[in-house]
């Protein structure tokens, strides 16, 4: 019998991160790590570098230290963009969550063919945001279908994208439409994990459907809700495609979000360093809010 050579089995043990199993793991993880490093980590580091420099269009790089940030915090346009972004987030997130919760509850039943609906509701997520932006822009025109419905019911037509007070809710509706399918599936998975016994026990106690929802479903959905909340926060803070296609930051800068400002500064004025500085502020902001949400919502029992 061949002796399995005691290659380090009894003499010196290899550290776990050099074991065979670990090497296998590295090989499997390597492609994604490479892609992640090249397309996520490297640009972030490059962005940090850009924000500390003064870069011109022709490629000249000058060290600027914190000058970009000083200019940023003194720029009223930055604060306005930040305000618009925060306001948009405050409108979009509850809307999206509410729609996703409602749809998840509706779709959470063992009917035959229910999976068809689950797939259909996911389609907006995979639709190109530029395309959905163009279509919604058409829907929102003053003589478009939406206003036709309003006038048919007897209500006055609304200036969806042209009014400074209506433009952010209109954009929030588009975001809710785009994202609810994704959140719905996550919440659905959370709902399906809730044991049936709880509901049966509640039904025996003759509770209403709303009471069951409020006292059983919501508390047990907490981890899923937290996850969806963080995702949606990140998404709302980074809203750009729809604004670019539908309103170009208007009217009167009412939809001039922080990401739009970054794009504007970098591509229209070639102020790459300044745009990157705004990007860094956005990054820190999203990080802080996610940490805050972790403390409040993600708390374990």
């Amino acid at each position: 019998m061949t002796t399995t050579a005691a290659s380090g089995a009894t003499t010196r043990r290899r550290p776990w991160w050099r074991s065979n199993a670990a090497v296998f793991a590295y090989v499997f993880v390597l492609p994604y790590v490479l892609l992640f490093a090249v397309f996520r980590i490297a640009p972030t580091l490059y962005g940090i570098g850009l924000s500390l420099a003064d870069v011109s269009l022709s490629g000249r790089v000058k060290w600027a230290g914190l000058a970009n940030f000083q200019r940023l915090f003194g720029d009223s346009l930055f604060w306005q963009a930040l305000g618009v972004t925060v306001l948009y987030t405050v409108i979009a997130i509850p809307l999206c969550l509410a729609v996703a919760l409602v749809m998840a509850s509706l779709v959470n039943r063992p009917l035959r063919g229910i999976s068809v609906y689950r797939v259909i509701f996911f389609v907006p997520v995979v639709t190109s945001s530029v395309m959905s932006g163009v279509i919604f822009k058409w829907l929102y025109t003053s003589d478009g279908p939406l206003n036709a419905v309003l006038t048919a019911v007897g209500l006055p037509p609304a200036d969806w994208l042209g009014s400074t007070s209506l433009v952010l809710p209109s954009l929030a509706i588009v975001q809710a439409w785009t994202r609810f399918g994704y959140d719905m599936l996550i919440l659905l998975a959370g709902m399906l994990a809730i044991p049936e016994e709880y509901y049966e026990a509640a039904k025996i106690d003759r509770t209403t459907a709303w009471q069951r929802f409020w006292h059983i479903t919501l508390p047990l959905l907490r981890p899923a809700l937290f996850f969806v909340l963080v995702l949606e926060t990140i998404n709302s803070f980074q809203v750009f495609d729809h604004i670019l296609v539908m309103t170009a930051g208007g009217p009167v800068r009412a939809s001039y979000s922080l990401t739009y400002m970054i794009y504007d500064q970098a591509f229209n004025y070639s102020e790459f360093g300044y745009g990157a500085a705004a990007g860094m502020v956005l990054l820190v902001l999203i990080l802080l809010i996610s940490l805050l949400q972790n403390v409040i919502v993600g708390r374990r029992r």
Partner: protein
Amino acid sequence: MDRRSLLGGGLALGAGGLLTACGGGAEPDVTNTDPGQVSGKVVHWTYPMGETQQDAWWQPLVQEFTAKYPKVEVQVVQQPWTGREQALTTAVAGKSAPDVVYFNPDFVPRFVEEDLLLSLDDALGEDRSDYVPTALSAFTYQDKLYGLPLLMTIANPAYNVKLLKELGLAQAPVSWDEIRDAAKACVARDLTFANYQASDGSLNLTYYPFLWQAGGQVLSDDLTKAAFQEEPGVRALTFLRELADLKALNNAGLTQPVGKVEQTRFARGTELMNLTLDAPMPETIMAKGSVKGSQPFKDQQQVVYGSVGGLSIFKMSKSPEAAVAWAKFVTEKTTMQKFLNAAGFLPPRTSLKDMYADNEDQSFKLQFVDQVKIGVLHPKAREIIDTVRPHLQGCLLGKTDPAATLTAAAAEVDALLAR
């Protein structure tokens, strides 16, 4: 954390180092026209202008050129108008900029400040005398020429012939009082007078002409401070605000970005005038003869905005002599005439000034070449427009009054210019 910040710093420095351009070499000899020596590849970015937006239109020209310069390969690339600045910025930053590009004068100062354009005084040489002085000065910055003029546009107003007759007006309005009367007549019949593109239109085509007509100017003479907030500017904005309050200006144009020209009210025949029509409306959208050009508006002065289009050459071109040869070929008399006929624009060469003798609309426009204002030639001209525009939009939507609007905008522009 220590290692990571080191790595971050190192990467940033490395990236910065990569970014640094190699610096300018010696200036190429742009007067070299020897076909035996001029060689290389020339990429030309052009934009949709009439028939020339078809690749096929350029083929015979490219063939004619390569017959003369067999060692040069020319590639004409069509680019869209929308986002042209961003596309150009991206290309330059990504080191894939074209060799020859169609430019308007307000691009020139910005790109010259970044040391990206080749000066073309020597290349033009004696041909200079054939050009209209306005055309050459439009492309001159700090006493050097940075573009070979190819076309001129005059953005005078145009009106819908049928609607004018329906409204019972003898002729299109010229003075501001006539505009007020025409606007009221339009509103009474449920039409709009004109479209004022407040959200994304260039101020050259919207506010500036009215400012100039009132006798004002955008910047002070030394170009260091804003001057539009003075009395003529307030007068012009008050006038526009009057039209907006009368509901004579199309609401969609005041609030939202422009759509395709086919979807505008003017194209659909429910609007009397187009404030600045610098290119002929395609006949597929409005039948020939249904739109006529009218006199520029007049208040204290009769002023019209016009632009010059020309070909500029990037310094980092790998074959600058070939690029210059191609640019000169496109702008020489016979080729230019073909281009202008296909694109529908006006000639910057005095030797071509009779080319439209039998075309009523174009010869009408040619009269105003001397009253034309090219706009503000300053590296931050576009930034000034982007800074002032939302303020004007807010005023026209009724949120602020004209004097306060302009003072606030002027403060921002002064800060911008001081930077």
